[in-house]
């Protein structure tokens, strides 16, 4: 097992339950990414009641609250102790390659051989920064969410936040509130309210079974796996943070960053359509939720159905910004993350450097598994509570594989 985050530990739990000898190798400490690569104010997007791992549920007194990063680390750390995971921490894997009877895992603390390996290394190892970043004038500072901790880190002045996922809108809001006027470049995005008809949106997605939808039931898997994270924030007030909320606070919404030429950022004229698409999609989702509520006879106990205001888009949002004028001091690239497979010496990547796998079973690499990617096996795969079902399924597959002919140890 490579990685001691929540997914790796969930698999470890099932392996232990089935008496499969294993080791969990971790480059840092348990829950390393949550400890070291997140900004200060971040809280989970999922409410506490949803923070559960195989055999362990949230038992605190704030089920509707959202965990801070130290709380998440505490939760996962506690889980590692409860399941007594066979940890090998502070050990960095530098190479994995196939051998005749399995895999050789080279680390800075020695070499392991194993008939099966599970990659639980997270989906967010490296920031995805578009190539146009090379054309940004030297006078403008650039930062990714992996290095970003708090607004005070940034110079004074305007900030261009590129990307309107959960990451982009959360950082945009706190940076704007710090007195650094934010321009938010908005491409395709997913709009969700925090609360609908008195219930957290995660309650709806959970209860209706949407989060349990399997990868082989989804219309367009490639598209679904690559969707940006929904515009949500976890706060004690359980408030909705969408583009309207940002615009009301004075942040400026502009089109997707399409290019940079001659020191000018070129912005797409597609902002209205992108917002319209997200509004329509939200409307369809709420229709589905309302139908479900009526079917289940819940209309009496829930608040009345309602719809959210369409996203307000300026008549003529600017199509370019002069990055040499001093108006923008910093660009924050909230343009997504990708896994790091540079240490993987096996022919398992596609032409875009992504792992070829069928719901976590790596193709052309018997005994190699992956867990912890967006919609790996289910819509909930990327959430903490989504680890359980995926880990159980992959453990079943792994045990069947080890059982048929592969050498045991």
């Amino acid at each position, binding site marked *: 097992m490579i990685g001691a985050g929540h997914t790796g530990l969930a698999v470890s739990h099932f392996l232990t339950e089935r008496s499969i000898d294993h080791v969990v190798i971790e480059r840092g400490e348990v829950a390393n990414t949550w400890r070291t690569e997140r900004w200060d104010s971040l809280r989970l997007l999922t409410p506490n009641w949803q923070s559960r791992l195989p055999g362990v549920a949230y038992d605190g007194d704030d089920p509707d609250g959202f965990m801070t990063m130290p709380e998440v680390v505490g939760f996962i750390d506690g889980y590692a102790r409860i399941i007594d995971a066979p940890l090998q921490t502070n050990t960095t894997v530098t190479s994995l390659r196939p051998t005749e009877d399995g895999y050789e895992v080279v680390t800075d603390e020695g070499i392991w051989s194993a008939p099966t390996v599970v990659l639980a290394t997270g989906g967010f190892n490296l920031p995805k920064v578009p190539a146009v970043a090379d054309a940004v004038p030297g006078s403008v500072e650039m930062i990714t969410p992996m290095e970003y901790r708090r607004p005070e880190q940034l110079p004074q002045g305007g900030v261009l936040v590129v990307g309107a996922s959960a990451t982009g809108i959360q950082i945009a809001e706190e940076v704007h509130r710090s007195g650094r006027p934010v321009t938010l470049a908005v491409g*395709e995005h997913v709009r969700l309210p925090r609360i609908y008809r008195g219930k957290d949106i995660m309650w709806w997605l959970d209860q209706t079974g949407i989060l349990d939808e399997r990868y082989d039931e989804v219309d367009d898997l490639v598209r679904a796996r690559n969707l940006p994270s929904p515009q949500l924030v976890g706060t004690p007030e359980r408030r909705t943070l969408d583009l309207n909320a940002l615009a009301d606070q004075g942040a400026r919404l502009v*089109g*997707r960053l*399409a*290019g940079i*030429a001659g020191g000018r950022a*070129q912005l*797409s*004229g*597609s902002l209205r*359509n992108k917002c*319209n*698409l997200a509004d*329509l999609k939200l*409307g*369809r989702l709420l229709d589905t939720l309302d139908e479900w509520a009526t079917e289940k006879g819940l209309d009496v106990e829930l608040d009345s159905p309602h719809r959210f205001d369409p996203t307000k888009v300026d008549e*003529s949002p600017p199509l370019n910004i002069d990055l040499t004028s001093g108006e923008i001091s910093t660009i924050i690239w909230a343009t997504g993350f990708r896994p790091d497979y540079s240490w993987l010496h096996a022919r398992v990547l596609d*032409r875009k450097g992504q792992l070829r796998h069928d719901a976590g079973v790596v193709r052309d690499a018997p005994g190699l598994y992956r867990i912890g990617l967006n919609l790996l096996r289910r819509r909930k795969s990327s959430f903490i509570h989504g680890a359980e079902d995926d880990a159980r399924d992959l453990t079943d597959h792994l045990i069947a594989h080890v059982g048929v002919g592969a050498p045991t140890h």
Partner: protein
Amino acid sequence: MTTTGTPVNNGVNVQALLDARTALVDAPEGAQFTWRASTEWVGGTHSHSEVNGFFGLGGEQAHRSTFSFDADHPEVFASEDNGATPVELLLVGLASCLTAGVAAVAQNREIQLNSVKATIEGDMDILGILGADPEVRNGFNGIKVHYDIDADATPEEIEAIVAQSQKRSAVFDAITNPTNVTVEVN
């Protein structure tokens, strides 16, 4: 969704498009297309353009016949008006592309279209092209497209089809996003 029992037919072979998508993901080199046109000056502001050959699916392809287009400027520009203005052709390109997309998306969503009509307008301050005001751009200040669609669907479904067609439109992308243009002279 359609309420009739007859199969939806907007005349778009969506299955062929979906099959092509699957095939091209496995053979991405086949997805590299080059579109071409040739334009010859006739006289004054009048030009005559033809399109026929293009490259795609790994080889040279051709239209069933050569299509030709005349472009000119109207008499208020002291021209002879032998054809649409180039900017009008651009509007035609956008509206045609979006309308093709409407049909394809509707077919894929099994929605029967009865009629689709687009009207398109592009506002322009011609002080730009006349070189009379350096702060005015040559191109459109904005483009507005209006659709009248009769289909066996709810207003929300129709709106979603139109939104999706913009999302998948080559011309919408070409107009809303910058493109490097290289012009050479022999």
